[in-house]
Each structure stands twice: as structure tokens, then as C-alpha cells.
């Protein structure tokens, strides 16, 4: 090869062999090859490197530890987030605020105002914000059939890793209305909504928690009474407008039913 710029370089010959040369340049090269034996010899030399690459490397694919890599990937992708829940959650907040729907239920003596700021209480604050927007109309409609309850609960319990039967979550004197799967801090949050004919909406909410078992305690949030407790794997809260003693009794019942 000479350094004459009109003589195609190895790069151009390679691009020609690889089908990457623009048509005009390829035509010019082909014309040169007709007359330039040295160039044709160089092209022939470079073309010897057109080896069966794909075939040679194919067996390496089978050597990949596919099962292990898939296991690694699935660990990375644990607990994928259900997108619609959060949108609905925020949508509900926004819509209710705009509509000026304010929970105006009369309540309820709870003298101490807890200023708990620890992490484990944040989710209860979020839930309280949400439940405060509920009115009896939010939960209007018939009580779902037992089969419908089971179907709703089974979808929730799968995500939450907690067995929830209609019997275990039943509250005496209060109608179960629906189970809703929400999301808090990228974790599934189960909201079981009830309607108390006397005091209005009531909800039992559950998240996964490894903070350890804690006996029931009480607090007031958004003008509602909250009874909260946890076991080894989950944290629970019962929130509603019913008087504190009634809330404690309901929470005690459901806690025993769930532990049974």
C-alpha cells in the first residue's frame, strides 16, 4: 500500500467487507479493484479474517450460569411496586381536598396528643391523613358477599404475606366494606375498610414490619382514635371515629382473631 490518499485504506477495505461502505464509495472501490492487483490482494488478505465468529462463540452462551444470574436478578427485583395504587392514593387526596371534603365527624375524647415522630409512626400519620377524607358515602353500598370478600382478601394477603380470612378480620357490629391494596414507602399496605352505622368509616391497616412485637397502644390522629400494635412480621392499626373504649375492644377482638 502507498500513502497516496486515493488508495483505499485498510479501514475502507474492512468497511467494504463488512457492508458498511456507502454505495458510491463501494462502487469506486470496486472499480479500483478491477485494475489494482495490489489492492485486490490486500482485500483478499483482510477477507481471510472473515471467520465463523458467531458459530465459534455460540457455545459460550451455554456456559453462562443462567440459573444463578436469574436468581440474582430476581433478588434485585423483589417486591415490584404496583403503580396504580399510589396514583389512586394521591388522586384521592387531591380530589378530596379540591372538593373540600373534610371529615367533620364529631369526636372523641383522647386527652393525650401524641407527638410521636419515630419512623414506625409515620405510616400511621399517612393512613390517618387518608382515612380522614372518608365519609360514610365513601363506603356506601352493599357488604360484599363472602366469596367476594375472600377474593379481595386473597389478593391482599398474597402481597402482604399474611393470612386474612373474612372471619379473622370481621368486627362485631361493623360492616366490612372492602380490602384495598395501597403502597407506603414502596411496601404494600393493606387497608380493610369498614362502616360503623353509628360513627362512620373505620379501617384496619396493615404493613410489613420487623420492628418486633408491641402490645396495643392508643393515639389520636386527625380527630380519630387509633389503636396500634405489631407482631413479629407486621404492624397493625385500627383507626376510626368510634369512642376510644369501643376502638380498644374492636382492636382486641381482631388482634386475637388474626393471631388464631
Amino acid at each position, binding site marked *: 500500500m502507498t500513502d497516496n490518499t486515493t488508495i483505499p485504506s485498510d479501514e475502507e477495505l474492512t468497511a467494504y*467487507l463488512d457492508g458498511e461502505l456507502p454505495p458510491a464509495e463501494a462502487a469506486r472501490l470496486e472499480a479500483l479493484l478491477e485494475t489494482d492487483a495490489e489492492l485486490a490482494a490486500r482485500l483478499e488478505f483482510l477477507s481471510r479474517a472473515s471467520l465463523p465468529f*458467531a458459530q465459534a462463540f455460540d457455545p459460550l452462551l451455554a*456456559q453462562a450460569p443462567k440459573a*444463578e444470574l436469574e436468581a440474582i436478578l430476581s433478588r434485585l427485583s423483589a417486591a415490584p411496586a404496583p403503580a396504580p395504587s*399510589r*396514583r389512586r392514593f394521591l388522586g384521592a387526596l387531591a380530589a378530596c381536598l379540591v372538593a373540600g371534603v373534610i371529615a367533620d365527624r364529631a369526636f372523641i375524647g383522647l386527652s393525650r396528643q401524641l407527638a410521636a415522630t419515630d419512623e414506625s409512626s409515620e405510616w400511621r400519620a399517612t393512613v390517618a391523613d387518608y382515612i380522614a377524607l372518608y365519609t360514610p358515602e365513601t363506603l356506601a353500598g352493599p357488604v360484599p358477599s363472602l366469596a367476594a370478600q375472600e377474593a379481595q382478601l386473597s389478593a391482599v394477603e398474597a402481597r402482604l404475606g399474611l393470612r386474612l380470612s373474612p372471619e379473622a378480620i370481621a368486627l362485631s357490629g361493623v360492616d366490612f366494606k372492602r380490602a384495598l391494596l395501597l403502597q407506603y414507602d414502596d411496601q404494600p399496605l393493606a387497608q380493610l375498610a369498614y362502616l360503623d352505622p353509628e360513627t362512620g368509616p373505620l379501617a384496619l391497616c396493615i404493613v410489613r414490619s420487623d420492628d418486633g412485637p408491641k402490645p396495643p397502644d392508643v393515639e389520636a390522629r386527625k380527630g380519630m382514635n387509633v389503636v396500634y400494635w405489631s407482631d413479629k412480621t407486621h404492624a397493625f392499626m385500627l383507626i376510626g371515629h368510634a369512642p376510644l373504649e369501643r376502638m380498644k375492644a374492636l382492636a382486641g377482638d381482631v388482634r386475637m382473631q388474626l393471631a388464631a
Partner: protein
Amino acid sequence: MVVAYTTFPAYSHANKTAPARPARSSVNPVAEAAIASESDIRSGLTENLSRLWRYGLVLSHRRDVADDLVQQTCVRALERATQFQVGTRLDRWLFAILHSIWLNEIRSRRVREGQGFVDAEQALVVDGARETETHVMAAQVLRLVGALPDAQRASVFLAYVEGLSYKEVAAVLDIPIGTVMSRLAAARATLAGNLKEEGGR
């Protein structure tokens, strides 16, 4: 029954961008997009694990490093799911992530730690080869490619094994197309020369 979709008037989508909580509702669509494409990225990763591992092996010549490279590629791809441009080739994007991890993190770390890589000729070996003529040829190709300098080897692998265009190779390696051309031309000259020496053809 789809529990989360129980209908309530308060859940109407028409109202979701209401101004009462502008900060939260404007952040939300971004998070949703990330979640949506993250599942695409995950399934794309699943489909391409073996190819990514093979590329990691070609780059590093070590199986354990190839494992690491794939794992880190998975982490990075899921983190950056929002950066993937829908409509472009996902496998190319994943190759580019793996390559940048190799270049910027793993290779430099090993050089600093003074750990070399095993000899190229030992690395790219097909188990149970040398039985048939096809295997002899395959083993020779692996040996020849394995002996190329790092930069040429990556270009040859992407262009000739994975079938990427020059433009795609340039994007994966983050280099100009002209550099791809010169690496492939140099690689061809080396391969053709070594083939001759080995008495191939």
C-alpha cells in the same frame, strides 16, 4: 377481582392533577414511568443474561468477573430504567452499561490491586472441544480473538459475533465510528496474519 381498582368517585383520574398538592402530583408521573419501564428492563435483562455474561467473559477472560459484571449491569440498568429510550434496542443499551462498568470500575480496580487476568488462550475455551473439525475451527477462532488487544477484541465481538453495525458498536463503546473502523481493520490484519502463521485456511 381487582381490589385496588374499586371504583369510588373520589378516585377519578380526571381530578388527579388538581392543584391542591402540586408537588406530589407532579412528581408522581415520573415515578410511574420509572416503574413501568423497570419491568420492561427486567424482562429484557432476563432475556439477555447469557449474552451479557458472554460479553463479560470476552472482556475479562474470567468467569467470576463475568458473573460480577452481569450482576452490576442488572443493578445499574434497573436504577437507570428511566434513561432507557423506548423504541431503541435494549440489548445494545445493556451491552453499553456492562462495558462502562468494565472499563470504569472493574478493570481499573483489578489493575490497582495488581491482579492480572489469566492468559487469553486459557480463557475462551469451549468445554469438550477438540473433537471434531468444527470444534477445532471454533477453538482456533476463540484463541485468535482472545489474543487480540482489549479494544480490538471488544469491537470484533460486538460487530462480528453479536452482529452490531459500526454505529451501534460506536455507541456501546462510546467511541467515534472512525475508531471502530480502525480497530476492526487492525483486528482483521492481525487475525489474517496469525491465521496464516498457524497454517490455517
